[in-house]
């Protein structure tokens, strides 16, 4: 029997606002314990929440970028449970009426495009952090740090449309890229600003009903999500083949052991008793606001990749690498515009130096000049690499450095003739062997010319001149 997997992914994205969702504390990362707190986010008696407008804007823009329908009215609801990192003993979230519904993103896996549905996007607040005191298992207490309480989160739930771990990875990466493009989230899985839980089930191929699903948690990188999915799918198939049944449960991914582990027995069934939060009124979003925000949506990664491929004729793989950051893609296009050089070469240069570009250490003109010099043979590949490193180090213009360091290649055949003649004259025996059929000796002659010119000669041109003279 053949099985297929059914995968749905739930992403929690930390929104890159200055302040928290319901109070004016800083949402910045890395403060000392309980530094970024106030009576509101620590759930003191008598406090009340007030919603941060930018959080709603970010969610609306995300909805637009994923073709979701933004609801004119959505409701904030309380999700009630007890935990020391949850000061009010409820999390303000959205339940029956989320901010946006029914969207999709298109992903590319092995040359095929697939549309993955997005069920809903909603707003909620983050909880704090509970650390277990003492490094040893016998510690009796835990310590609560409420800095992260009320940091704004956006939850994005996909339809169970993915069928393979690769599709899962592609969906996550694409979604992350969209969020980074919109500047609503910095998309860092390792740091926890972009988190993913997965719902996985398997069913016999051709069956319409879904199998029983397990929820996977604790995957802290894209690669780990793929590995966890791979493992869990295999596990579920094996259980099925052995005649067993899948238990609906939460399982944690153990990256070291490479397995998912059941949480059953450790976690009680939660009854969250959702109800609309009476301290907050419904979120009203009118068409005018949505339209205004629609104008702020930049060209999205999918569109950009397609356009770079069609406009510049570069391979899709390169276009995807360039599009991994808006800044890099813009840099690439500016570099091409500055000189009009070979887009493929320009792309390679941009990709090679992407970290420096991100750090703001290179300008499009630099790359344009490098490409131009390479195309005109003025600078060799090795030398241009060295030059760019020098630009990064010193900040000086590339051509100035090129001239200062004397890295201009000699590509003029006439200028090289004299040296070629000299080398031919100095190596009669090798000339004879070459003329006698040992074609491989050409590189010897090239090497000699390079030695004479201290590496400055353009090897291609040298080769041609040699060929012409040696016959």
């Amino acid at each position: 029997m053949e099985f297929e997997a059914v995968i749905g992914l739930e992403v929690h994205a930390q929104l890159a606002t200055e302040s928290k969702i319901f109070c004016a504390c800083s949402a910045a990362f890395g403060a000392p314990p309980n530094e970024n707190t106030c009576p509101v986010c620590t759930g003191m008696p008598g406090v009340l929440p007030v919603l941060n407008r930018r959080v709603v804007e970010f969610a609306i823009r995300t909805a637009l970028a994923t073709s979701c329908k933004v609801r004119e009215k959505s409701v904030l609801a309380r999700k009630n449970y007890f935990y020391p990192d949850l000061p009010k003993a409820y999390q303000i979230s959205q339940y029956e009426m989320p901010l946006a519904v029914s969207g999709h993103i298109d992903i590319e896996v092995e040359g095929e495009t697939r549309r993955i549905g997005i069920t809903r996007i909603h707003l909620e607040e983050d909880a704090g952090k509970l650390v277990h005191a003492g490094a040893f298992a016998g510690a009796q207490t835990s310590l609560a740090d409420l800095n992260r309480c009320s940091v704004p989160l956006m939850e994005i739930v996909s339809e169970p449309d993915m069928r393979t771990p690769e599709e899962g990875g592609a969906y996550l990466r694409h979604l992350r890229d969209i969020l980074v493009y919109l500047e609503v989230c910095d998309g860092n899985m390792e740091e926890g600003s972009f988190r993913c839980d997965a719902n996985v089930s398997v069913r016999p191929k051709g069956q319409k009903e879904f199998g029983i699903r397990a929820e996977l948690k604790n995957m802290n990188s894209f690669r780990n999500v793929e590995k966890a999915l791979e493992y869990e799918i295999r596990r579920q198939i094996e259980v099925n083949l052995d005649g067993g049944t899948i238990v609906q449960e939460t399982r944690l991914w153990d990256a070291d052991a490479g397995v998912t582990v059941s949480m059953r027995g450790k976690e009680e069934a939660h009854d969250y008793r959702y109800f609309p939060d009476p301290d907050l009124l419904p979120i009203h979003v009118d068409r005018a606001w949505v339209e205004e925000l629609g104008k702020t949506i930049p060209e999205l990664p999918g569109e950009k990749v397609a356009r770079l491929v069609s406009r510049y004729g570069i391979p899709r793989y390169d276009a995807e690498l360039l599009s991994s950051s808006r800044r890099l893609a813009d840099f690439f296009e500016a570099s091409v515009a500055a000189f009009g050089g070979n887009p493929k070469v320009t792309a390679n240069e941009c990709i090679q130096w992407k970290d420096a570009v991100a750090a703001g250490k290179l300008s499009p003109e630099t790359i344009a000049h490098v490409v131009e010099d390479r195309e005109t043979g003025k600078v060799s590949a090795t030398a241009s690499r060295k030059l760019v490193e020098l630009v990064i180090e010193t900040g000086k213009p590339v051509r100035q450095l090129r001239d200062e360091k004397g890295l201009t290649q000699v590509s003029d055949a006439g200028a090289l003739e004299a040296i070629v003649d000299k080398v031919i004259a100095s190596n009669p025996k090798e000339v004879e062997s070459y003329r006698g059929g040992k074609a491989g000796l050409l590189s010897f002659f090239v090497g000699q010319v390079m030695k004479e010119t201290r590496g400055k000669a353009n090897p291609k041109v040298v080769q041609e001149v040699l060929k012409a003279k040696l016959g």
Partner: protein
Amino acid sequence: MADIPVHEWTLLTAAKAVRDKKISSRELTRALLSRIERINPKINAYVTVLPEAAMREAEARDEEIARGIVRGPLHGVPVAIKDIFCTKGIRTTCASRILKDFDPPYDATVVERIRAAGAVLLGKQNMDEFAMGSSTETSCFGPVLNPWATDRIPGGSSGGTAAAVAAGTCFAGVGTDTGGSIRQPASLCGVVGMKPTYGRVSRYGMIAFASSLDQGGPIARTVPDAAVVLAAIAGYDRRDSTSVDIPVPDYVAATGRGVKGMRVGLPREYFTEGQDASVKAAVTKALTSLISLGAEGVEISLPHTGYALSTYYIIAPAEASSNLARYDGVRYGYRADGAKGLIEMMSRTRAEGFGEEVKRRVMIGTYALSAGYYDAYYGKAQKVRTLLRRDFNEAFARVDVILTPTAPTPAFRLGEKVDDPLTMYLSDIYTIPANLAGIPGISVPCGMSPDGLPIGAQLLGKHFDEESLLAAAAAIEREIPLRRVAPFEG
């Protein structure tokens, strides 16, 4: 003014005397502090008294007067507030063991505004625990006694505030009303109490019981006094998302408006056969006084009135169960000793820290929201709430205000209803609908029972029409003068 003792003055009289430099804030404050010292042990209206701080504030207010500075209409006047409003640096307990030593890190908006108006804070007043009650018998500090008859309850949950005002131990107070907790004790203590429209007074810093029903409001000895306190605390607050941005009109002026042409609705559901005779008689007198001044009585019906209590006793406990979940022993308040793990710590903390009534309501509320029961209870109650609001909307198309009794009976005896929660809940049948509809209501004294216990009439108004209520209540007050300070000397 000379022959009326200071503690019996109205707030407006006291405020004017301070402004006119006829009396100092220190004298007023000292007089009330010594009265509190003498009689509070007998009636237990105050949880915390602040003698040194109050005298310091009074001194500062006097200095300002000397320099010609008047902060606001309450300048130099000693008042007190229900121990449900957060006061930074002053313990705030909600009359609960679980917050017995809680020192808030901030002041409630109501507190800020009272101070901004120049008032002197005498102390924090006793209440039913977490505002859940109708008799102030559930306080962890012991019950409050009605100064009109100390074997009787003062009403609740703002029983401490009403009793303190009626006993002449403050010129006014601020209480809270979720199902009648300002109006009912005001009625039982023979003073004026007003619940403003939902959204009129900021809830920031007012420890939450039922968020969609709670409102802070004044308790005072006269309607104009209540008006001036309301004016001081009302108004938009950005820190409360349910606060409404509507200007605050001249409430004091409204008390002189008169009632000529005012249509007064009389809902038949509030005037029933088996009703207490003295209550009926007193409210009837209030009606005739309004009519004699040019108002018109109109019979109306609020057909869903009978369902209001049930609706309230689902919605309020449900919201309360969520609002009180934060009392878990982690960040503040009581924490049970010697618990072996987190769940035991939280569970014993709450079982030991909360009183019986609070626990009962948390249980009802948790149940009403729980899986499988939400639609039948909470969902259903929210729909019935809509029907109740509709009743009022339709009525207010035909009338300007609605007149009813405030409480079904005068003050009952201590201990009389504590053993039967349902019987206790029935004390609120006339007051609860206003909270569910979000409309304003006021109770004004209009008679006495044969036992000499106060009886109040309730007036209900349209959203944000506190002015009509103040006009009508003031008219009743002028026509039916009644003693406002209980003859209680300890």
